[in-house]
């Protein structure tokens, strides 16, 4: 009986301590901080603050346990039925109900009245000359490259660039982009600093020496405010030969356009 009383006293004392500590524990942590805390990605001081809060807040403790439950799950009939209602709401949102043209991935538009690229038309013309001259191997190589460029490239390494920074899917720390030796293509996503204000954009990739290694025009932003380019790795001579710095200049508007932003891109 005495033991039971003492246990109850301890629980009571701890309850009082929790109540007083709760008043000093501050507001609930942001859910993003909870997720980062669980993933061990929060800075020490913020992690300590979250930890102290969790000790006194049962609600946040329960929320923390939810983080790991957000994993993909096999679709079921409920999900299919729920999608119908979801689709109706999405139809009212501008990004998905826009003009069909806005849903097309801009790569490099086919040249109309003027060439879309400085080098590509010459390369194509040269390929025909080479075919005519009987250099079959050259022609086959080029044809394969063109086919690669035209097909879906979801599995190509993705370089997701924000103004002034460089990141790649899965890269630790960000900044440096690794292009494995077996890769022939990579996907470059240029995120605009704000909403798209131009119908057409032009991009230039410039190496460390200021030389333009690639330039492409006629680019259009997608509904999410970014431009997607699928490029051959061979454009970037530094890939696979040590680290090399590039910058990507993005221009908007007709003609040469105005400089929108410069993105940094480091290859390893």
């Amino acid at each position, binding site marked *: 009986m005495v033991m039971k009383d003492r246990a109850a006293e*301890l629980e009571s004392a*701890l309850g009082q301590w929790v109540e007083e500590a709760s008043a000093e524990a501050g507001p609930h942590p942001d859910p993003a901080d909870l997720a980062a805390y669980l993933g061990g990605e929060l800075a020490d001081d913020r992690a300590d603050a979250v930890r102290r809060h969790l*000790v006194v807040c049962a609600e946040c403790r329960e929320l923390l346990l*939810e983080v790991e439950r*957000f994993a993909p*799950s096999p679709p079921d009939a409920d999900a*299919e039925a729920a999608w119908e209602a979801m689709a109706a709401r999405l139809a009212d949102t501008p990004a998905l109900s826009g003009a069909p043209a806005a849903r097309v991935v801009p790569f490099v538009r086919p040249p109309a009245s003027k060439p879309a690229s400085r080098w590509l038309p010459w390369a194509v013309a040269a390929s025909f000359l080479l075919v005519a001259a009987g250099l079959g191997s050259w022609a086959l190589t080029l044809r394969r490259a063109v086919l690669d460029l035209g097909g879906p490239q979801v599995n190509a390494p993705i370089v997701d660039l924000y103004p002034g920074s460089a990141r790649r899917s899965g890269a630790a720390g960000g900044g440096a982009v690794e292009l494995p030796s077996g890769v022939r293509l990579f*996907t470059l996503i240029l995120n605009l600093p704000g909403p798209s204000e131009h119908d057409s954009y032009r991009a230039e990739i410039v190496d460390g020496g200021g030389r333009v290694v690639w330039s492409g025009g006629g680019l259009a932003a997608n509904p999410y405010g970014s431009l*997607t380019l699928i490029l051959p790795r061979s454009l970037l001579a530094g890939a696979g030969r040590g680290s090399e710095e590039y910058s990507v200049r993005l221009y908007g508007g007709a003609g040469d356009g105005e400089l929108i932003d410069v993105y940094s891109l480091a290859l390893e």
Partner: protein
Amino acid sequence: VGNETLPAVSEPSVDALLASIRAGETPEDGFRQLFLLYHRPVYGFFARRGLAPEDCQELTQETFLGIHRGMGSFRLGEPFDPWLFTVAANAYRKHRRYLAAGRRQGQELPLDAPADEPGRSAPVLAADGGPEEETLRRERLRLLREAIEKLPEQMRACLVLRIHGGLKYREIATQLGRSIDTVKTHLSQARKRLTEELGENLGWREEWS
């Protein structure tokens, strides 16, 4: 292993799906696939919070609308699941604030404050003895509180979660980001310190054996 809760879709394919959506390749179909893959965990999150089915459906839609709106700023390569959790949890908290505001403005404020509202008192032990016993009990509580305050933070945290929160060792380890062995060690030391601190005065030694 026949466990239906195991994800059937690997992260790389979710990454590829996200990249496809971001690249603008048939975004409507891509987003549909994303919705189907994550509908169950998102809906379940709200259902576990005790919300009515119509509220669960509404908040699930709100969550995916938030994902849709934020897709442009999502950095490919970052894990998607924590982001989805963040959007869902924020939708839930917004819903809670909405309900709380409705209660404050309406006439249906319950006389008994809900358990999670401020003003809740810590459990107070009933005093079934006489005045002397009550005085002794209060003194024991005061000394106990002092001893708890003196404990190192991590020890106290483990003790609070174990005794007051009723958590298992594994759950404490998750909450505090420590190993289970560390939690056990902290608890053992906390008990030892409390015993040493209080044992001579209040006869706690046998309580902790």
